[in-house]
């Protein structure tokens, strides 16, 4: 049981990250999924912000602002611009249906908790106890990339994995150095831009975002 407002706020922000990950599996409308991703980015930034303010770490607060800007605004805007061509597009036929993938997400969360048990036992702080949430977010991201077919959903899955890794990094080490964080963020941004171009190409060639349309490689 948490005892201080700091721990409680941290728990809520980290909880919001994983709830957003689950909601991306729950919703079908791609624009709603992208919005959820933006909320998750803000929640992730909030985790860093709370940690930074609690430890009086100016760099961490800066990183938090950077994350909120990049993952809460820039990346979702980029994705939303791809979606603007087809605003009503939906993840209509995932390989695993929605109730089953939700139950799968629950199982992955339990798996993450049982797998990180030794780590949690090692770190006694509230932040340390929340590490499983980051791992669960990561696993749900992998799961989303496996079962979803649209290009946008795959990007979202990748971003979930990245958010999960970032969450673990913040909670375990109280923030990575600014340079590393910058590098990781730029890397992800670049990947999103590339995938965005790919999705736009898919759209102009086939009129769908469905990756199953890519049967073979041609020049």
């Amino acid at each position, binding site marked *: *049981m*948490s005892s201080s407002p700091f721990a*409680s706020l941290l728990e809520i922000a980290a909880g919001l990250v994983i709830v957003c990950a689950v909601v991306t599996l*729950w919703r079908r409308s791609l624009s709603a999924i992208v919005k959820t991703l933006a909320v998750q980015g803000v929640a992730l930034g909030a985790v860093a912000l709370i940690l930074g303010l609690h430890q009086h770490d100016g760099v961490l607060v800066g990183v938090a602002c950077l994350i909120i800007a990049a993952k809460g605004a820039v990346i979702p805007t980029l994705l939303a611009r791809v979606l603007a061509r087809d605003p009503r597009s939906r993840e209509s036929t995932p390989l695993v249906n929605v*109730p089953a993938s*939700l139950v799968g997400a*629950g199982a992955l969360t339990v798996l993450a908790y049982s797998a990180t048990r030794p780590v949690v036992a090692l770190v006694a702080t509230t932040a340390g*106890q929340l590490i499983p949430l980051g791992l669960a977010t990561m696993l749900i991201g992998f799961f989303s990339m496996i079962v979803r077919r649209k290009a946008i959903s795959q990007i979202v899955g990748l971003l979930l994995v990245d958010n999960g890794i970032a969450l673990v990094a913040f909670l375990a080490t109280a923030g990575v150095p600014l340079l590393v964080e910058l590098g990781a963020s730029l890397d992800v941004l670049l990947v999103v831009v590339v995938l965005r171009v790919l999705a736009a190409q898919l759209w102009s060639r086939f009129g769908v975002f469905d990756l199953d349309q890519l049967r073979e490689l041609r020049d």
Partner: protein
Amino acid sequence: MNSVESVCVAGLVAIVQIGAVLVGGPLLLGVMRKVRSRLEGRRGAPIHQPLLDLRKLITKQRLRPFEASWVFGFGPVILVATVAAVAAISPLATTRPPLGQSSDFFAIIFVLLLGSVFLALGALDTGTPFGGMGSSRAMTVGALAEPALLVAILAMSIPAHTSNLPALVRIGLAHPVVIASPARLLALGSFLVVILAESGRLPVDNPSTHLELTMIHEAMVLEYAGPDLGLTMLGESMRLVLLLGLLVNLLVPWGVADRPGALAFVIGLVALVGKVLLAGVAIAVFEVFSAKLRLFRLPELLAGGFILAVLGAVTAVVSR
């Protein structure tokens, strides 16, 4: 305080709580319909319209299908009786209700389910296709909502080390941090989804339609008329107000009477009415902007509720 006096006080508390739920149920329904029609640009019926409907139905002649057995007449009675019994011992206006030590959350939910089951049996009893269809749909929704609810209660009970409902409310009152914990919040979110499903509100069932292809609850009570129909309506609205009352007391317990005394109890009652009213208006506003889900999409919604509860329970186990 001698024992006779305490028994009298406990009885009074129970009667007031039952009375509040009895009158509050139909009135909340009226308020929700009023909000809805105002937002849709209609004037809407007066708020006490459901009470007038009830009076009309109760004074009508008792009319039952020729083939109906005793189960048919039992359904509405058991529905109202179970809700009233639970209302008496629940922490609605005070955290020390009569027989409070026996108002376990799991037990309360199963007592409430008894009413739903008997209503479904009553609908099956006459052997009409609509009744059977409504029953099977209602039981499907119930079977999907039940696991979510049980895991949600588990998630709330683990940090508190008890599933006793008054104790859960008292702990929330004493340690606000417990309410702000993700376990409690996720569990309450799941509880809200279950309430909407069980009481046939909008994303699950449209309470204002009689279109046979889509309806769940209305199909179940199609054969009822007169006083039986009145009792069914009353029981359903009482259950909604009771579940909302429990939800708001678990989410924002402030105002609920934690000390003995008439003044604290009255304040608790007023606070309860205000909180439930707010929750009801919020649900009504939400209903204006949402459409009914297809029946085959319902498992998605309820699986979502279930997963919220599972996340809550897992978080509770780890951060214990």
